[in-house]
């Protein structure tokens, strides 16, 4: 069975600095997708970034980028130039491409951006 682990329950960063959130996963599958979702206090789940396992190139979306290490089963999120609006819970999630769509989530990391 697939599992997703986020080992950092809480993190903080100063505004304008860079922070990296960690995520590891366990799977025996070769084709899958990985995601980072953001959940601010409004509780809306917002897709931040998506990575296809068959692509070696790391995904980027503006200030957000990932470091995808398939062999190590690691999928970290880097937030550059942190902004106060980045304060939220961040969830790493796994989706097996052969599945009917079941997302498996990590435990989440609460990120606080300090002014």
């Amino acid at each position, binding site marked *: 069975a697939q599992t997703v682990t986020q080992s950092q329950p809480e993190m903080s960063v100063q505004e304008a600095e860079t922070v990296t959130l960690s995520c590891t996963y366990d799977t025996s599958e070769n084709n899958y997708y990985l995601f980072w979702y953001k959940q601010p206090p409004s509780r809306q*789940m917002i897709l931040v970034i998506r990575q296809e396992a068959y692509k070696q190139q790391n995904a980027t979306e503006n200030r957000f980028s990932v470091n995808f290490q398939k062999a190590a089963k690691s999928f970290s999120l880097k937030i550059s130039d942190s902004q106060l609006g980045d304060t939220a819970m961040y969830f790493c999630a796994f989706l097996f491409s052969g599945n009917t769509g079941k997302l498996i989530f990590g435990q989440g990391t609460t990120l606080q951006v300090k002014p």
Partner: protein
Amino acid sequence: SAVISQKPSRDICQRGTSLTIQCQVDSQVTMMFWYRQQPGQSLTLIATANQGSEATYESGFVIDKFPISRPNLTFSTLTVSNMSPEDSSIYLCSVGLAGGDTQYFGPGTRLTVL
């Protein structure tokens, strides 16, 4: 992406009653899902809402407790039946886009059971 709405956004209910949560999408989608997020926890998939057939439930969730309807490709409901305080959670619907490989979420329904 898609515009997804949920009703109600929050509710406070009495033990033993039932609540039906609605999820509406602005376009036709094949895959719709219901998740539960207990206080301070991550998200757990309850079931996949299938159009024209019964929902597919995950381990630990049963149809009698969480009946789901999917009358068309833009709408689904989740009912939380015979509620207890342990059912106090955020309930979120999601839709699968990009061939089902990416899910987008509704704003969630915060349920408190007294």
